[in-house]
């Protein structure tokens, strides 16, 4: 029987993200994050690495949930966007979207958090078939500190 849900989780050291930015600059940012993600991360001085760390954790959590490790997927095909309320949600495209469709995974919940130098994300994907070209996914933001992640 096909599992009804798939789960992915990831933990990222913010200092590793800061190191990559320092070493590779814009090449790193553009390769891993979408323009919107990068713009959001840069919006508050001093928050860039932490915000990108949470987003990288979300991308890896999706890769784990969809079992994309051996498939070849661009990190930019997994995007974290924010609703007007500040809650994060996922938008998939290209290989990530194909994998979600093939697995019948069409509704995702995303939660992000960070504390000190660590950022984490958890993704729960549910089997719901939605014939849409882009899957806007339900999210559940951890409201710790009441701040946007």
């Amino acid at each position, binding site marked *: 029987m096909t599992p009804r849900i798939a789960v992915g989780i990831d933990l990222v050291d913010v200092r590793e993200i800061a190191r990559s930015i320092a070493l590779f600059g814009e090449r790193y940012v553009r390769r891993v994050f979408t323009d919107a993600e990068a713009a959001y991360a840069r919006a508050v001085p001093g928050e860039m690495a932490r915000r990108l760390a949470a987003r990288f954790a979300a991308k*890896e959590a999706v890769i784990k949930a969809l079992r994309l490790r051996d498939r070849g997927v661009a990190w930019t095909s997994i995007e974290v966007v924010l609703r007007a309320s500040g809650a994060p949600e996922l938008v998939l495209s290209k290989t990530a979207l194909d994998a979600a469709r093939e697995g019948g995974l069409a509704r995702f919940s995303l939660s992000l958090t960070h504390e000190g130098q660590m950022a984490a994300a958890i993704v729960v994907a549910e089997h719901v078939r939605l014939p849409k070209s882009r899957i806007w996914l339900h999210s559940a933001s951890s409201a710790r500190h009441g701040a946007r992640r």
Partner: protein
Amino acid sequence: MNEQIRSILKEHARLAVDIATLADDGDLYQAGMTSHASVNVMLALEGAFDVEFPDRMLRRGVFESVTAIRTALEELTAGR
């Protein structure tokens, strides 16, 4: 090429062991390389070998060992 790859791994893979103790087919992830560290390895390889890894190569198997990385680089530089 293997020594250049090993040099990049030493600097960027954040391994829990000395890269010199790993065989060419040793599993880098088992040796402690995280997913994020593999991004740094990829970017460093691209800079050192003047290549760009296409999306289809952004998978675990391509970066799992010195041999796997060499195979990928040889494919990307074929015909030069």
